């Protein structure tokens, strides 16, 4: 073996081996194996919900609302969720951003036609509402077309969001039953108020 071969042989093998290994790894995504990056909260996102009825609607609203609030606050949806999950008082900025985000979500769902007609929500709202049986029976007897003509889902939701005590909701965020009760009460109240209002007008 020549001196040149002795000098260069092993370094050449080492360079080839290292380059080969690193090239294969980089080709297969080496260096980018990192946790899922949060999506831009200001970019439009498609959300889905497994739940039906008011629960499903609330879930989609909350998911879109978090994006809207995060966009306003300059945080990702995930960072905002983690921030809101921490115990302690909420700032006015957080509460205002969340309310505005939820209202944006209603607009967005109205625009893309994903808001269900009010008639789909009325039966569920009546189950939770504390109405006298005569009035409840009268509302339930209304045809869907009458309800949908008299009641707009987006109006109900906007009223719900505007009347909702978001600060109290956020304080109960780790008490599932209390959270459900507050959300159901707010939606039910808004549906009930709107329906009663329309009924009074009709009468």
């Amino acid at each position, binding site marked *: 073996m020549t001196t040149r071969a002795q000098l260069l042989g092993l370094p050449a093998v*080492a360079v080839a081996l290292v380059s080969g290994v690193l090239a294969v790894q980089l080709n297969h995504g*080496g260096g980018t*194996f*990192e946790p899922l990056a949060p999506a831009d909260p200001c970019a439009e996102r498609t959300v889905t919900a*497994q739940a039906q009825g008011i629960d499903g609607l609330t879930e989609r609203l909350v*998911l879109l609302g978090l994006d809207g609030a995060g966009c306003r606050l300059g945080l990702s949806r995930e960072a905002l969720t983690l921030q809101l999950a921490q115990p302690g008082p909420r700032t006015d900025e957080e509460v205002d951003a969340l309310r505005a985000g939820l209202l944006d979500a209603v607009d967005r769902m109205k625009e893309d036609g994903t808001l269900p007609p009010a008639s789909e929500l009325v039966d569920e709202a009546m189950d939770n509402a504390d109405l006298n049986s005569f009035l409840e029976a009268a509302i339930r007897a209304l045809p869907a077309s009458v309800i949908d003509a008299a009641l707009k889902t987006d109006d109900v939701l906007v009223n719900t969001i505007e009347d909702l005590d978001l600060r109290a909701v956020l304080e109960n965020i780790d008490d599932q039953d209390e959270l459900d009760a507050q959300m159901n009460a707010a939606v039910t109240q808004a549906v009930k108020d709107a329906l009663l209002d329309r009924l009074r007008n009709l009468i």
Partner: protein
Amino acid sequence: MRRVVGPLLAVTVALVLADSAVVTLALPDILLNLHTSVAQVAWVLISFNLVLGLVAAPMAIGSGLVQPRILGAVGIALFAGSSAWCAVAGTIEVLIAARCLQALGGALALVGCLELLVAVYGERRGVATWVTAGVVGTAVGPVAGGLLTQAFSWQAIFVVQVPFAVLAVPAALAIATAPPLVQDRHRPAIRPNLTLALLSAALTAALFLLVLLLVQGWGHSPAVAALTVSVVPLAALAARPLARLLRPPPDVEVAAGCFLVAGGLAGLALLPSSNLAWTIAPQALVGLGLGLTVDRLTSQAMEMRLPRAQHAGWTIGARHLGVVLGLAILTPVFTADLQDAQVPAQEAITALVLDAPLQPDSKIAIAEALGAELTQQEGRIPDLHRAFATLDLDPSERPAAAALERELDGQLERAATWAFRDSFLVGALLALLALVTVVVPRRRSAS
């Protein structure tokens, strides 16, 4: 008699040097068993290497005053006794104290065993046996420790050392030697020792960080981690045939070895997934590099230098202080990165839970359980399975919840791998620094 005594002394040398990293795979078990912190448990490794690194050279300098058989026997006995003490340690403080004593005995044993092996096998073969036993011990230590921890417990690592060491005491005493008469005294070989120190720091990154990533980051058992890192010693075995085939000059061989270690560590920093198969090729590079460098550098540091034991002491000191340097640099880097990785990991987990195809009630229940688990395991990589196991979900939701658990585990693996990336790169940098010490031209001595 030579047939028994020589191998027993070589095994003792391997055991002492294996102890440098033998507990690496047992650290998670020690952490839990002795109810301690990550920072404290690292001292189980650091204390041994620090004491061995600091006392090896002074012990070697003083060894000329004592008969090697007495020095070796006392060292081995102290090593055996303190190994037993390590096994019964009930607190982290006691374990660290026992490890310090173990290193003290180990330093005496290493110096004594060198002279005894030379007495048994002759100068050339004796030194070669001592060097080879050390390299084998260093390479095999983490694997053996992992398998013993998995099969029995972390205490077993120390228990199994006792009988070997106990048998080696009479073996050492059986060799009649006088303190070697030294006519010449050579200065320590600074360059190979410096290269060895930097390379040891880099190799610490490879072994210490990789096993932590496998066990803590990816959730593998110590046995699986031990089998995985066995690629390093296996690849080291291929280094000699490769060097014989290409016959490079010694410095070129060491330089190529340093480059391979740096390349392997860069490969570990750039893993494309948490599949164990991806660690094999980078580990093979590290193993090849280890095989080409450590014994060659140790020989360079000791060859034709007298007193032999003294130069062995400098070499042991350089290696183990290098390990301490590696741990001192890397531990804060990866613990800080692990801390920093918590936020992206939590955000990724939040995103997956929010978008999971589950009922809202189930999502809230999962989020609460995960929150409790993450709070309990602050500072460590959490075990999400416990959070899912406590849930009372509707049977129709279980498949989606199981899929979510797998996805969340995947995110944790990604976060852990990401957190170790910079540390592996720092390790690669240390190996490149070792390479620089080899390739920088020597000053010409005045003739």
